[in-house]
């Protein structure tokens, strides 16, 4: 799912690069001193998870964990994912440096969307089963949104991928279910052990959800 060199057109690369920088700036500005270790550790978890590739389809699919990152980090998912993808591009050659912006947006934007739609509900959840369900939804939603965003980038670059986009989606749908289960399990585990992590991922400019 990392888009490689030479696939996207220059306007798409430039726009996504600029947008990614802006979003990372927002993520860093809203980052709290006490939450930095969490960002580092979750970035490492994302780094490892995207490395494990299951050989399905042409290249192989891998878990994203961006649903979990969105719920726990909010906007800070952008710098976390950008750093992890940058290191993957340098160390392993997954994806290219030019497509960093596009790849980051395709993975971090769904994380932020999941944050805005689901984290309030998780914060006010009462049972761990509820949290599992919300985590599951977050995992599936994040994976599907990532697929949609990647397809949009490919189509905008003029590639004739209409049939292929459907094919790609079919490989990834079962994976989205697995992602949902993993995210749900992780969030319900956190709910039982450290619920304060799910309550306030980051500073809000509205000051409404800062503890």
């Amino acid at each position, binding site marked *: 799912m990392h888009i490689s060199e*030479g696939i996207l057109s220059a306007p798409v690369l430039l726009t996504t690069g600029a947008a990614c920088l802006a979003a990372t700036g927002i993520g860093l500005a809203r980052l709290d001193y006490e939450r930095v270790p969490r960002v580092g550790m979750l970035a490492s978890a994302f780094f490892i998870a995207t490395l*494990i590739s299951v050989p399905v389809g*042409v*290249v192989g699919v891998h878990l994203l964990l961006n649903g979990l990152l969105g719920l726990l980090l909010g906007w800070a998912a952008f710098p976390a994912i950008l750093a992890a993808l940058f290191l993957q591009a340098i160390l392993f050659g*997954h994806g290219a440096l030019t497509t960093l912006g596009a790849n980051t947006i395709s993975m971090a934007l769904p994380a932020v969307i999941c944050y805005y739609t689901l984290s309030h509900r998780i914060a006010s959840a009462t049972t761990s089963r509820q949290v599992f369900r919300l985590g599951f939804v977050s995992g599936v939603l994040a994976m599907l949104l990532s697929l949609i965003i990647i397809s949009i980038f490919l189509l905008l670059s003029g590639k004739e991928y209409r049939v292929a986009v459907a094919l790609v989606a079919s490989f990834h749908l079962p994976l989205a279910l697995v992602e949902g289960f993993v995210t749900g399990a*992780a969030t319900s585990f956190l709910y039982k052990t450290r619920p304060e992590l799910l309550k306030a991922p980051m500073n809000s400019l509205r000051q409404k959800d800062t503890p």
Partner: protein
Amino acid sequence: MTKFLVTFCSIILIGLATSPVAAHKLSIFATTDGKTITGYAYSAGGNRITEHPIRIESTEGKTLATLTTDKQGNFQYLPTATIDHKFILETTDGHAAQFTIKADEIQGNFTASSFPMPSPKITNDNIKNTAATTPPPQNPALITQVQHLREDIQALRDQTRLRDIIGGIGYLIGIAGIAFYFLGTTKNHPDKTNNTGNPDN
């Protein structure tokens, strides 16, 4: 948080240790015996990419030909000019791979002359130059060995080594540490707002 991360990371690392960690990458490998270029396309874990189009481009970007890999992921091409050949494979989900066969590997006799190697007059002056530009002898066993060597080098490059993973994680935690330090000196630090009179701040 530590308990969660310990279990999480140990699950991931067990998964890494037990299965061959594949680099989620697309690759092309090609060699030539001077006349024909043969190669194959493969992905993470060694799976071959079967029945997929491959484009051949020159260094200027001109498309020389389009091939399709066969059921084993192999392809073959007969070069018609002594130039660099770039083999490009692009999949439909945004992955791409390329491999270049350099011009000096192709022993082209595309002119009217039927001698494969031009043999300049060997004098004392140009003996060194001749040695550098004369192509290697056509020894099939040697060619096969070199091909295997190149495959091994490519496989080495493809490997996702554990030390690279640990290096990446180290970098991430290091960056987090630096951010931790800098944020500690800004107004985000909780102690700053309390005016404790600490001389270090």
